């Protein structure tokens, strides 16, 4: 009968290895939800900011257009008043000349200036 020898009888010599025995949780997967909320917040802030920015720019343009219109109207009104004053002055001058009986230029000039001052003072 043969004597059985060590290492020829299937004696285990296995070594424990540092393998993974359990599944690991993925940090990426579990942090995704929070990141999605953060991204939603960013999107809301961006959209709100864009809308507000556009509204401010719209108001700036609106005010510019209103200002330009008001300035044009003001200039037109000024011009109209100026034209009216000029016409009135011309008519008054013509009337003065028609009604004038002065015989020398110095007297005429003095009377004309006095009439002009009187007319301006009346207005």
């Amino acid at each position: 009968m043969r004597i059985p020898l060590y290492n020829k009888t299937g004696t285990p010599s296995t070594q424990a290895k540092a393998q993974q025995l359990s599944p690991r949780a993925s940090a990426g997967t579990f942090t995704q939800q929070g990141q999605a909320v953060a991204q939603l917040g960013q999107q809301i802030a961006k959209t709100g900011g864009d809308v507000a920015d556009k509204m401010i720019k719209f108001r700036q343009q609106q005010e510019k257009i209103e200002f330009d219109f008001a300035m044009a109207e003001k200039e037109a009104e000024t011009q109209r008043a100026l034209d009216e004053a000029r016409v009135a002055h011309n008519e008054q001058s013509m009337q003065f000349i028609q009604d004038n009986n002065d015989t020398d230029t110095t007297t005429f000039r003095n009377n004309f200036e006095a009439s002009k001052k009187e007319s301006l003072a009346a207005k």
Partner: protein
Amino acid sequence: MNPMMIAAGASAAGAFLGYKGNMASARQARQVAEYNAVVAENEALLLARQSRDQQTALRQQSERLEGSQVLAASASGVQLTGSPLVTLANTYFNTEVDAQRIMNAGDIAQMNKVAEAALTRATGQAQAAQFRTAAYGSILTGIGSQAQLGIQQDMLGQQSEYYRRQLQA
């Protein structure tokens, strides 16, 4: 509707959600790291148990082998001296050597798992810190947007005042 109200609401909501989302991510990263670290620590315990079981199995098997060897030697009528004794001694010492190897390998595997647990916790803390920084960044971004829109609003007001004075002049 006042654009400043819209911007204030949107940036406040954005900052709040950004802060909450990033803080939730930080908490999740920390919890995931803690979970993984605990799993690694449990694995270290399992490996210790496995190593101990392997040693026990080896010793039991060796005892059976020794018994077989003694039986075989006795059955053949020889005394347990000389070569049969050497064979028995060989079994005994080899068993010890293998048991030590198993124990050593088990220790290394356990140390790996302990290190893995520590590394996992450190990684989780780093990720959590990153998310916390992003959370504070969200609030700062919100304040920055608010300030920028405030400046725009001021400029709009100044422009309006300029137009008003120009028209009155």
